[in-house]
């Protein structure tokens, strides 16, 4: 670990690596989840045994699982996933299309890196949801505003991860490629992209984490579809079993998406020695 590790990006990397190193067998997977649901059931059972708190019984795991069944039959879950997935996918796509070239520029040009550092750090630390009032005015629909919020939240991890990936590329590779007659275009396709695919994917994983946090509050307002709206709706209609069902669905989908990116990262990893 050198001192470069201390700049923005690689802290996130450590986190991503850490999250991968934990893990166990399939039996521990189910045993762990069973423990979680057992604790959940016991907690709600204990709380709702007090007569004044009896209405909390709806928060338990059994009503939540029943509600998942009903909501699936109604198509409620599928519709929410579809509209949230569209916003998330498009927002992340925009973040990648903008973030990767910016990251490559940051990694290749010291002038650009030093000039952009201060403004990017400032913009990065503007909490994404504080763009919301501006986004609502600038964009015509709430849909576009939400996609903008997701894109602006997730562009930074992608850009900084790309830049740090490029910083790890051995400069001799470029020399060798130039000596072998590589054009600028070949540099990009033959060296840069394969070398940094791992880092870009790690950046996308971090971006997904942030986008997932931003998505739900962004959908609390203005729209009438998506996971955030469904939660807010269940709360307003006092359907606590549906509320817990949606909370569970959000966790499960997040876990699934995160796991899918981990598989991609492992596929493109060429630094097998490091943890």
């Amino acid at each position: 670990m050198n001192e470069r590790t201390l700049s923005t990006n690689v802290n996130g990397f450590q986190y991503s690596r850490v999250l991968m190193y934990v893990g166990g067998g399939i039996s521990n997977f189910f045993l762990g989840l069973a423990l979680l649901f057992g604790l959940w059931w016991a907690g709600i059972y204990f709380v709702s045994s007090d007569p004044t708190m009896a209405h909390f019984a709806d928060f338990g795991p059994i009503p939540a699982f029943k509600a998942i069944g009903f909501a699936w039959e109604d198509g409620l879950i599928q519709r929410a996933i579809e509209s949230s997935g569209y916003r998330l996918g498009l927002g992340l796509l925009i973040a990648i299309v903008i973030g990767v070239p910016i990251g490559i520029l940051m990694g290749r040009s010291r002038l650009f890196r030093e000039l952009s550092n201060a403004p990017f750090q400032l913009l990065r630390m503007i909490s994404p949801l504080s763009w919301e009032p501006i986004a609502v005015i600038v964009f015509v629909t709430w849909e576009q505003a939400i996609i903008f919020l997701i894109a602006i939240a997730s562009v930074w991890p992608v850009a900084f991860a790309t830049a740090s990936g490029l910083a790890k590329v051995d400069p001799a590779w470029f020399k060798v490629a130039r000596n072998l007659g590589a054009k600028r275009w070949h540099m990009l396709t033959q060296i840069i992209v394969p070398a940094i695919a791992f880092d870009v994917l790690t950046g996308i994983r971090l971006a997904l984490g942030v986008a997932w946090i931003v998505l739900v509050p962004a959908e609390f307002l203005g729209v009438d579809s998506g996971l955030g709206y469904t939660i807010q709706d269940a709360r307003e209609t006092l359907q606590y079993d549906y509320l817990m069902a949606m909370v569970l669905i959000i966790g499960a989908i997040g876990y699934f998406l995160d796991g899918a990116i981990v598989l991609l990262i492992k596929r493109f990893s060429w630094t097998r020695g490091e943890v």
Partner: protein
Amino acid sequence: MSNGAPHADVVPMQGNATSGHFRSAWRRFSNAIIGLSILFALWWIGGYFIYLNPHTTHFASFGPIPTLQAFPEMWASGSIQSAILASGYRLGVGLLIAVVIGVPVGIFMGRSKKFRELSNSPFQLLRMISPLSWMPLAVLVFFSWNQSIIFLIAIASVWPVAYATAAGLAKVDPSWFKVARNLGAKPWHMVTAIIMPAIAFDIFTGIRLALGIAWVVLVPAEFLGVTSGLGYAIEDARESLAYDHLTAMVLVIGIIGWILDSACVLLIKRFSWHHSG
């Protein structure tokens, strides 16, 4: 510059180390100033186009000049200070709870393989529950909105702290524990004399990540229910159509976030003991 870790290409010769270091620091400082000027110029041009378009003329106060003019007025009325105070309290207590819970959980994960493997699937599931979706539940469980917001910040930031602590522990050479045990260390000494100094760096790295996430959660959490804090100030400026106040608060959020993030970076460097590659 906040993340001013020296780059590999500016390592000075030993003879003129100080002057070389000073020159590169100066270059990075002036580049930071130029970079920020470019940002403000782009912002000004954007504001000017908004002003030129007849449909959006009334949004002209999004520009940098009305924003900077709004600062003294807002500072004098104390609205910036009170928003920072209210949000700072929530953020501080939330992060403190996350550290107090996250570090022991992380140490436990790092030391016990059984606990690490059992906790993985429930913790990953809980980690990927978007923090704001706990809000309806938090509002019912806690008496005040203030407590709910602190809960949201704590539950969002406990994961990076716990996982970073566990990772730090995994890097600790097991022979250190053997040596300590041979020298007669009690379990308590293991924590204070070996674990803590060894993983302080990783804990601060986790706190930095936690701060980044808490900062994302804080603003939407303050949109509803409370009448103080940075999120409320933004929502309030929007509803009263005070667009210059709105952009001023956005700028304040960016600057404070940057300062807090840089403070974490300084702490991380202070406690780093990996100096060599």
